[in-house]
């Protein structure tokens, strides 16, 4: 990225510098939130930061940092990229469930689930099994985004968020229970 400054003629240097400055400002204002969204999905701060950096690199390659949709794009991309990482683990987790039949008869109390890291993975796997939009609604809202910000990130009306959220919450609880009894 910085190499661009050397490669462009003088007339373009100002424009490139302006793009870099805009990107840095965007990065500083949104990085913590983007990483937070990824962390909400992954429950792993290190991997969440990997995802956040990947999201910003992809954004910088594709879009202008001064685009009005930049924060919404970043929030959505953080949720989807992190969910895709969890989905990538699903096959392995299914095998692990199959190899642990003693878990089959366990009943789930959400309060108790947080007590062990293994259960945290069960929750993330359940989240990744939801359809993309409900999963993203849950993650973005749980990460502190307002209804309006969630709506912008997902390209839906603000008025729909309440209903989407309630349905997604019910779906996640159901999925957690189902996942833990596989």
């Amino acid at each position, binding site marked *: 990225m910085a190499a661009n400054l050397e490669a462009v003629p003088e007339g373009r240097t100002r424009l490139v510098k302006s793009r870099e400055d805009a990107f840095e400002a965007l990065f500083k204002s949104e990085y913590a939130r983007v990483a937070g969204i990824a962390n909400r999905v992954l*429950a792993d701060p290190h991997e969440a930061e990997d995802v956040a950096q990947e999201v910003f690199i992809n954004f*910088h390659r594709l879009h202008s940092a*001064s685009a009005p949709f930049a924060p919404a794009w970043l929030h959505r991309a953080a949720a989807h990229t992190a969910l895709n990482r969890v989905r990538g683990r699903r096959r392995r987790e299914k095998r692990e469930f199959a190899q642990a039949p003693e878990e089959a008869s366990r009943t789930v109390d959400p309060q108790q689930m947080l007590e062990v890291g293994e259960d945290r993975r069960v929750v993330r796997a359940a989240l990744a099994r939801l359809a993309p939009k409900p999963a993203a609604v849950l*993650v973005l809202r749980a990460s502190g985004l307002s209804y309006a910000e969630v709506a912008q990130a997902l390209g839906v009306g603000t008025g729909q968020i309440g209903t989407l959220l309630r349905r997604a919450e019910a779906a996640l*609880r159901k999925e957690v229970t189902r996942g833990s009894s596989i």
Partner: protein
Amino acid sequence: MFDDPDALTSSDRQHYAGCAGCQARYAGMADDARAVATLLAAPDLQPDVASAFKRVQSAPAVKPRFGFSLPILRPSSRPMFVGVAAAAVALAVVATAFANVLPLFQPKTVEPVPVTVADIQSLSALSQYGTLTWSTQPQPKIVLSAADAEAIAGFKAPAAGYLPSTMSKTITYAAMPKAVAVFTFDAGKAATAAAQTGQSLPKLPKGMDGSKLTVTVGPAIVEVYGKMNASSSSDAGSQQINVPELVIGESAAPQVTSTQVTPKQLEDYILSIPGLSKDLKAALKAIGDPTSTLIIPVPIQYATSTSVTVQGVKGVAVGDNTGLGSGVIWIKGHVFAVVGPLKQIEVVKIANGLKS
């Protein structure tokens, strides 16, 4: 009501106070919300923004695959529907890498395949297996009228029969005469490149060393709707977003001829490249007749694709994940594309109304 109890109107509040059904429903929803808040609790994250920014800054810049980029697709002028544009760029990578090594490739239909950024990076390693030279350089030109574009391309510029009422009347035409590239496989260069980068690249199949692929692209015409030159005179201007309202493209279908290389050799070779996702491999294997199928790579992190019927033939509609842009590509003699920051239904309608 759960997130913002104050938002309840007094009449709603009165109804709620006397309605057992609403109270039970609310109790269930509130229970779900509390449970989910607990389930989605995450460990503390204390990001070091400054060092994260340094890491992101040091990420390598992307270079144009063929050493040039169209002026209408400069980064500063393409902020919105890049999900679609990325598919077009990746198309060049995958189409030249896979389908084009056939003795004769002339696509008659289109097929989407899912690609990831990692896939594109892996496929770009192909360029280290030989030398790409242009025997006829691509020379895209911005021209003043449809007639000028037609004179360069040698065919009639596509005309939109339907456009949304808000569409700009300003059209910029670009045209490109036929361009011919020759890719020569070179086992020595591949070995050197692999040694320098430390990558473990699959060995070049026997008999491919020295073989040539001749790729013919274009002629092509691109029509860009919207004012494209409003922003390059000042710093303030560089902050403006200069987005085409619609792009319509028509190009002769790419053709490929090869010496020595067989389709089977190429397929095996492509599929042996490390780092390709299972989804991409499966999609490539599933394509029935690669000699007549133009592969449309869909970057799954940024875009979605659906099959649509355009002008009576099969087309692929690609939507940017941000919901801000979509495009459709189809082959009817020539390859056509309509792309814009519009809803998919509008883009397909414009595509169906196109007269060529």
